[in-house]
């Protein structure tokens, strides 16, 4: 029967690979006999399989609890783990492609060395040879520059499993190094909530069912957090109204009771306009403010002085009457929740806009309430030991001298990586280690990053695929997927924590980041004893155990991490964040007037900071949100995904298309002063006339990278909590013309 046949030939391929692996003395795939045939009918892929628990680790709100089905050493299928009441036994379109990711013919099988960077002339090498090249380069650098500061790490969110912080640990274990610091994703919002509440902490998203009014503000969970939709619908079934505020009619907006098409980056003006109307009508929760907030009097004075409905209407493009209705409904239908999206803060005034929304939630007394809240994200379940990350420096290591006489690593801005790499001197960066990241695809100005690569003596990339970045490296090392390693994962949205069991042997010669660190440590110490402190032994599962402390165990209500093998656990946090009233600001209250913000050159009050305007020569705002079929540069390249989503496109409003003579399916060029891309037009009134929308993704065989047009413009906040300001991805302006 069909699938059996193809499965068999596939297994044969794997078996051949396994034989090769055995020859290389690096272990690898243990091959099992071929699956038993099924005469006819449509055999279920996972019949007779053993089940393991996994977690999808790829930087997502939902961070799904998964089950993997293994038979004869082969991953047969995946499913959601019903033990997690948030993900509810379901995955998303991306999660269901995992078997094809694990066994993709494009997956990296062995360490490889490239003849000349970007030449495509790859040569398979052994792990020993790869590590020898790397270790010698590190030691050479140390000799030449007197420290390991010329070694730079760029690692972020391709895999958020806690053990993968072992990469940072590996860097620490060789000495002081240069680190790409910050987060491209959400720092402006984090700082905003840090100024207002002391940190970011959203209500349990499962608590959304208790809301009577929900504003989804610049967030598109129908694409980026599908499991949240169930709770939103449940709330609606109980009578809640769903409002979506977004510059484009997103998938979530299409499901809303009320959709408001706001001008991009003017969300603060809308929130302030609503606040003024609420103030004028006496809907302010004075009692709550008195007990829990500071600075609200000044805020109200600002509102009375500078904010009117008409002003808000002019700035946001939303009729004043609509703003007034929204303000009334939000303030009088309690509890009311606002979910603040990450797209909303990817602007030069993004953090400030988040603060205005926070203030709106505070003055209506919606903070700290079940069914209420200004939900952004949280890190309350991330209190692990980070044992894999915390490594002592080798004796005599030199770094950047701090004023107090101690040494530290050298930090450069992850959000302007290329330019900072080019600029950093004394010593320059000469070696790059890239893991869980694809900067040549995902960074703004990837042209500059690529230019910075030219100064490198050695670029090492650890990945599953020959990504844009891997293709521009000297050495690529094959990484394991979560099915091939142990780990533990938390979410920055829901409250669940789960263990990730090793379900299958590593694919060919793939290795986990921690295993790579151990091997590198052994190699370094063999070449120069004492040059690396990373341990060279211990199983990954043991390391998972070391990540747990009593506080984490208590939070999860377990005595031992092994209990997580019975299923993920939900942290015993307050269901409604801040319901204890213990805010973590300096004053211990909601700081509508922030005591910290001015220290970072920011307004103390959530006043409106005008949005960035389009320059005349580039009149279109190019918004580049997350894609339904991918997570940044992951998943879109999988064959099953290519089958349902074969090519990228740009969404153009019919009026703009008509003005530019563009028809559906035409090829258009989108360009500005730093770059361009060419892709197909999709005419749709889901966008606005001055907004073009294309979705970030990596299509393996296409020269598609919308970041060619994206400048490294910083957002307003991020410095305080994440080390660097974020990126104003959505303050990107372009022009468009028809190509053919």
């Amino acid at each position, binding site marked *: *029967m*069909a*699938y059996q*046949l*193809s*499965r068999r030939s596939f297994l044969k391929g794997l078996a051949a690979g396994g034989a090769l692996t055995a020859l290389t003395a690096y272990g690898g795939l243990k091959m099992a006999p071929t699956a038993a045939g099924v005469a*006819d*009918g*449509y*055999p*279920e*892929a996972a019949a007779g399989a053993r089940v393991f628990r996994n977690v999808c680790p790829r930087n997502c709100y939902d961070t799904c609890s998964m089950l993997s089905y293994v038979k004869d050493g082969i991953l047969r*299928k995946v*499913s*959601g783990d019903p033990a997690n009441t948030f993900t*509810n036994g*379901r*995955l*998303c*379109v991306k999660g*269901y*492609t995992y*078997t094809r990711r694990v066994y993709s013919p494009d997956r990296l099988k062995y360490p490889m060395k490239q003849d000349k960077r970007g030449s495509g002339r790859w040569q398979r090498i052994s792990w020993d040879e790869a590590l020898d090249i790397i270790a010698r380069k590190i030691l050479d650098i140390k000799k030449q520059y007197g420290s390991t500061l010329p070694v730079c790490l760029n690692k972020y969110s391709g895999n958020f499993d806690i053990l993968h912080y072992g990469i940072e640990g590996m860097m620490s274990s060789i000495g002081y190094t240069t680190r790409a610091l910050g987060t491209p994703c959400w720092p402006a919002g984090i700082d905003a909530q840090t100024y207002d509440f002391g940190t970011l902490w959203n209500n349990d998203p499962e608590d959304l069912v208790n809301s009577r009014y929900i504003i989804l503000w610049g967030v598109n969970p*129908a*694409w980026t957090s*599908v*499991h949240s*939709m*169930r709770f939103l*619908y449940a709330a609606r079934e109980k009578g809640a109204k*769903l409002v979506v505020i977004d510059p484009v*009619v*997103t*998938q*979530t*907006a*299409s*499901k*809303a*009771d*009320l*959709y408001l*098409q706001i001008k991009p980056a003017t969300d603060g003006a809308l929130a302030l306009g609503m606040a003024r109307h609420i103030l004028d009508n006496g809907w302010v929760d004075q009692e709550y403010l008195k007990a829990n907030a500071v600075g609200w009097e000044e805020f109200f004075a600002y509102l009375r002085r500078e904010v009117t409905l008409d002003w808000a209407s002019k700035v946001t*493009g*939303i009729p004043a009457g*609509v703003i007034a209705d929204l303000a009334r409904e939000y303030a009088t239908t309690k509890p009311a929740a606002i979910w603040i999206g990450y797209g909303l803060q990817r602007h030069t005034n993004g953090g400030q806009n988040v603060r205005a929304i926070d203030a709106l939630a505070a003055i209506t007394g919606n903070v700290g309430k079940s069914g209420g809240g200004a939900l952004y994200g949280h890190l309350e379940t991330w209190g692990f030991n980070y044992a894999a990350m915390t490594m002592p420096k080798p004796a005599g290591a030199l770094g950047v001298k701090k004023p107090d006489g101690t040494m530290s690593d050298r930090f450069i801005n992850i959000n302007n990586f290329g330019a900072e790499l080019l600029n950093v001197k004394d010593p320059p960066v000469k070696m790059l280690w890239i893991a869980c990241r694809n900067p040549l695809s995902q960074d703004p100005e990837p042209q500059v990053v690529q230019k910075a690569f030219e100064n490198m003596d050695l670029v090492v990339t650890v990945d599953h695929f020959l990504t844009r970045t891997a293709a521009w490296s000297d050495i690529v090392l094959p990484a394991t997927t979560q099915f091939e390693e142990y780990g533990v994962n938390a979410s920055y949205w829901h409250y669940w924590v789960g263990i990730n069991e090793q379900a299958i042997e590593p694919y060919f010669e793939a290795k986990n980041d921690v295993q790579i660190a151990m091997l590198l440590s052994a190699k370094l110490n063999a070449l120069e004893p004492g040059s690396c402190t990373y341990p060279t032994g211990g199983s990954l599962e043991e390391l998972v155990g070391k990540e747990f402390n009593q506080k984490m165990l208590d939070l999860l209500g377990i005595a031992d991490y092994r209990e997580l093998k019975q299923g993920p656990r939900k942290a015993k946090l307050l269901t409604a964040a801040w319901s204890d009233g213990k805010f973590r600001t300096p004053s211990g209250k909601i700081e509508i007037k922030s005591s910290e913000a001015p220290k970072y050159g920011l307004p103390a009050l959530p006043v409106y900071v005008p949005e960035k305007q389009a320059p005349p020569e580039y009149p279109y705002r190019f918004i580049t949100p997350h894609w*339904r*079929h991918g997570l940044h540069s992951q998943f879109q390249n999988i064959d*099953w*995904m*290519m*089958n*349902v989503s074969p090519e990228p496109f740009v969404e153009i*409003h019919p*009026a703009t298309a008509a003005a530019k003579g563009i028809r559906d399916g035409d090829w258009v060029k989108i360009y500005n002063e730093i770059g361009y891309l060419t892709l197909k037009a999709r005419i*749709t*009134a*889901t966008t*606005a*006339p001055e907004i073009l929308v294309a979705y970030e993704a990596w299509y393996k065989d296409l020269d598609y990278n919308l970041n060619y047009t994206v400048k490294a413009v910083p957002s307003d906040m991020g410095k305080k909590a994440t080390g660097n300001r974020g990126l104003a991805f959505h303050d990107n302006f372009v022009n468009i013309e028809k190509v053919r």
Partner: protein
Amino acid sequence: MGKQLGFLVDTEKCIGCFGCEMACKNEYQAEVKPRWRRVYQQKEGNLPYPERNFMSLACNHCADPACLKVCPVGAYSKREDGIVLHDHGRCIGCRLCTMACPYGAPQYNEKEGKVEKCQLCYQKIDRGEEPACVAACPVGALELIKDLASFPGPGTVKELPGFPDITITRPSVRFVPPRTGIQIRRDAE
């Protein structure tokens, strides 16, 4: 004839996430090309507002299946519970069913030289489980109708714009039509 099983496609809830389609592939580790279940985006012009609405369709396990009728080798059969089964072993790959089905349900697998289609996860049904697509929907937009004849379905309809004429094969599918929220748009002036 026993009860007729069917699908309820709630296009009001459906977010077009493609999870059902991919869950189907995952369940059977199917070949890349054939799409036993397929998520179709409703044309913007069919809707009161420009929106993103979807229809997730698989084999409709019709009361009067065209595939079964035209198949020259008798590879199709209809179970007591109404599932239209395709016998992969018997199929000779003439593709006539792919032409006759109004819904594009049977699809040709070039690699195998045979047709294949949604079997409504009959093994799962026999074990009392939900079909893979239904079990995968994160928002409950896909349901298995256990008995179409007695399906009350207030607020459900038999067809939606673009859905092929249901009189041809009497498909065992019902829809909840999309509901329209209010849009305050900037291009409205």
